[in-house]
């Protein structure tokens, strides 16, 4: 008889912990499997820390996908997915992960995420996740990192991530 409340309490704690946002650390091996995970999850999956195996697109899950590959359009689409836009890199709620959105105008978009140690990491499309920019330098600031053709810096956003790789809490597709 005494076991029932204890069981319910444990279950409740597990549900609450599972739903909590937390900051990710840089553990690229989850994404760099050279197979299903690597090739079917893109920069949006990696930055939100959510594995979908669909090469997720901003706005797709909300039925409001971007209509042009420009900063305002991709940002609006991500907001429809529940990602919050903020004015600076240090304005996300404490437990939420800061993301940075950049765009190669009319060509493509790209996302970075800031990990628990304060450094930025990313996953260029179907390639491996990395902590280096195009010049092979660690990324302390995505605004000044070598981003190749992704010349437009769109700003910062906040996502409910997870300390477990691939288990972020945002609804993306």
């Amino acid at each position: 008889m005494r076991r029932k409340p204890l069981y319910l309490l444990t279950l409740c704690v597990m549900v609450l912990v599972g739903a909590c946002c937390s900051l990710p650390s840089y553990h690229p091996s989850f994404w760099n499997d050279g197979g299903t995970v690597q090739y079917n999850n893109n920069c949006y999956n990696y930055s939100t820390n959510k594995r979908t195996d669909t090469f997720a697109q901003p706005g797709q899950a909300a039925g409001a996908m971007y209509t042009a590959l420009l900063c305002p359009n991709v940002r609006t689409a991500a907001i429809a997915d529940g990602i919050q836009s903020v004015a600076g890199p240090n304005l996300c709620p404490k437990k939420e992960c800061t993301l940075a959105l950049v765009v190669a105008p009319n060509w493509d978009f790209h996302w970075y995420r800031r990990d628990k140690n304060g450094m930025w990491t990313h996953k260029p499309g179907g390639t491996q996740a990395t902590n280096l920019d195009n010049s092979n330098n660690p990324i302390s600031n995505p605004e000044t990192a070598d981003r190749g053709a992704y010349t437009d810096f769109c700003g910062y956003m906040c996502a409910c991530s997870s300390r477990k790789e691939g288990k972020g809490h945002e609804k993306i597709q």
Partner: protein
Amino acid sequence: MKKSSDMEQAILSICGAAMLGLAFLACASGSAAAQTGAAAGPKVTVLIYSGRPNPTFTLSASQEERLQQLIAAARQDPGHEGKTVLPSILGYNGIVVVWSSGAGLRAVYGNHIEVRERGATRFLADNGELEEFLLSAATESRTLDAEQLRFIRTKRPGTTTQ
């Protein structure tokens, strides 16, 4: 008695209809699988985007044969052991060929080729013939447009970025 026999008849009719339906579904999915199987050449993905879906196409039987010939003609390249040939950079990242039959994967970037089959990975090198062949096949199938091709050619290793 009549009621019971009516009910039995109704049940039999429903069962019969369900079985017919199942048989039809089985035939339809079988023929669809046969069609898919016939067209299932290796899938080629050109890695040029980070966020957008990358362009993909399927190799024909003759193109697959040419691909195998080019791989057979390539030389051993132990310099990449333990690493992938695909660079994690923003821009052109190479080409991936995957067989749905589970025959493995080939990755190509510039002169470098990665062959993964039966749980083992080996690295080969050529003079860029395999990459050029796949880019030509992508252009022929209209998978890549002129702008995408120009982007790839200027970002390929050994070419000057403009």
